[in-house]
């Protein structure tokens, strides 16, 4: 319980730190959004008016306090560009990004379990070779390039799947596939190694002596024991997934926080950039926290030895 509380506290401190850092960094260095909003030859009065409207005419500490007060009411300010509360724009986008990340994670887990287990069973077999090939591609080919190749094969040449946007569940297939490929190699390698280690355990021999079917031994008995290391990898994958989702969104024109962030960046819409970064980073910290806590629940050994 103490562990639980200290982890939650740590996460809260990190989120707050990120908020402050992002706010100060953007306010200190960013250009003047009023100048961008106004026409090139706008008079100073117009610019001043925009500044008042955006609140950028006041000192940084005043702006910070307004921001923090807004935060307690669940507001991240208004977007300069869309003239809407930032949360109204960011949350739907975040939802799409989470969909994408989750489906990529599921996809890669399915592949990792099937390919990893089968290639542990027969090292050197064709499945093992196929897995090595997939792992090499996943490690050296950049995500955005894989994405572009997938688009040109499956939507331009074959016309099977949409090339971008998020109109139906079909739109999720290609981006998740590209994203899954980036986290698959590590998962597969770890699972193969741990399945191979479990294979020689006594309980496997016993199960076999009992006449339990092979696939059942592999995918039920061994997998349950072999999946703990995999969980650690999945925890480490969160950062790659979020970063990768941003890239994949740009490649596939997928309406998530990544493409939104780039739009906001080109429009110099600082409240929006700030809101996106804060929401994304907090989501990330929370997901990590969740993974850590889940891990202690599943693996009692961590709970006991965790203070080391």
């Amino acid at each position, binding site marked *: 319980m103490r562990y639980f509380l200290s982890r939650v506290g740590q996460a809260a401190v990190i989120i707050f730190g990120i908020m402050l850092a992002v706010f100060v960094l953007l306010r200190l260095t960013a250009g003047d959004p009023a100048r961008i909003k106004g026409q090139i030859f706008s008079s100073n009065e117009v610019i001043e008016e925009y500044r008042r409207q955006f609140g950028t005419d006041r000192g940084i500490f005043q702006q910070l306090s307004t921001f923090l007060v807004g935060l307690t009411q669940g507001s991240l300010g208004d977007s300069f560009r869309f003239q809407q509360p930032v949360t109204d724009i960011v949350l739907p986008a975040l939802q799409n990004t989470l969909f994408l990340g989750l489906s990529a994670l599921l996809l890669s887990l399915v592949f990792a379990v099937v390919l990893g287990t089968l290639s542990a069973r027969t090292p050197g077999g064709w499945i093992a070779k196929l897995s090595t090939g997939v792992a090499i591609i996943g490690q050296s080919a950049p995500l*955005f390039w894989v994405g572009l190749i997938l688009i040109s094969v499956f939507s331009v040449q074959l016309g099977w799947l949409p090339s971008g946007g998020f109109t139906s569940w079909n739109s999720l297939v290609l981006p998740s596939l590209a994203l899954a490929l980036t986290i698959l190699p590590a998962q597969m390698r770890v699972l193969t190694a741990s399945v191979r280690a479990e294979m020689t355990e006594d309980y496997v021999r016993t199960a076999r002596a009992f006449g339990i079917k092979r696939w059942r031994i592999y995918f039920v008995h061994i997998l349950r024991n072999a999946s703990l290391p995999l969980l650690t990898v999945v925890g480490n994958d969160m950062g790659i997934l979020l970063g990768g989702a941003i890239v994949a969104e740009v490649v596939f024109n997928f309406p998530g926080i990544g493409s939104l962030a780039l739009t*906001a960046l080109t429009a110099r819409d600082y409240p929006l950039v700030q809101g996106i970064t804060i929401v994304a980073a907090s989501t990330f910290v929370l997901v990590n926290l969740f993974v850590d806590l889940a891990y202690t629940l599943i693996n009692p050994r961590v709970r006991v030895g965790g203070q080391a």
Partner: protein
Amino acid sequence: MKQPEKGNALLTVSATAFALLLMVAFVGPFFLVDPIQQDLRHVLEPPLSPNHLLGTDALGRDVLSRLVSGARISLLVALVGMMGSILLGTIFGFTSGTKFKPLAWLSDRLIDMQMAFPYVLLAIVIVAAVGPSIPVLIVLMILAGWPSAARVTRSIVLGERAKDYVRAAELVGANQLRILTRYIGPTVVPAILVIAPLQAAAMIVMEATLSFLGLGVQPPTPSWGGILLEGKPYLRDAWWLTTLPGLTIALTCAVLIGLGQGISAKLTGNRRRRVDVLRDPLQGEDSGEKIQPSQEKGHPGRSVERK
């Protein structure tokens, strides 16, 4: 007759390939047409057309020339980023290995935080703040890359700390700085030699990704990611604009990963010393830890127990 060592062939092939690549990147541009010279009469010509071996892009610029001159930028940025991140990472790795606990703790937490934070997000904030440019790109790459180098160094330093020669040095009264630099320092070198090419491969992918997002090298300066970005709208009509730079990136990374494996194999063969840092450069070096589930998860940096 000396038995040819395993891994030497890999080392020779990948080192030759890399040297060739460097030569093409830095000498090649002098023999090719200007990569930003537009020619609107010859746009989107496919590869193997006259005068343009790899075709032209939407502005009639020569793709081969752009790839070669992009190689110069991409490799330069990647190599500088690699050196910077390894330098910073080594410093933090040693800091984590000091006896002074608060400093080591702080360094550990910084490594964990930076390791976990997605670099694309960091890039978006920083570029939003100061605008995209090549120096900013290099800083971003160093920021994104140092934790992996730091963790490798850290685990070696902590491992060496417990050994008798360090204890002996402590007993004789050598100060901590001397122990870290003169005694433990040299033991880190082989591992750094191995991770350097892997780090460079990660940097190349990173540069390409950031440039592809428009956060890195800016047009008209050609870089591999930038060429891909400019080729994206022509996916349907001009496959070579995206396929070729992507293939170049993938091959370069494969060569660099091969180089890392070759160096590792050579070092292991020569010294019977296990340089076990051959993991993927972007995804952490702690697979050894992952296989033993008894290690705690919350602090991925702590794969080696502190004595």
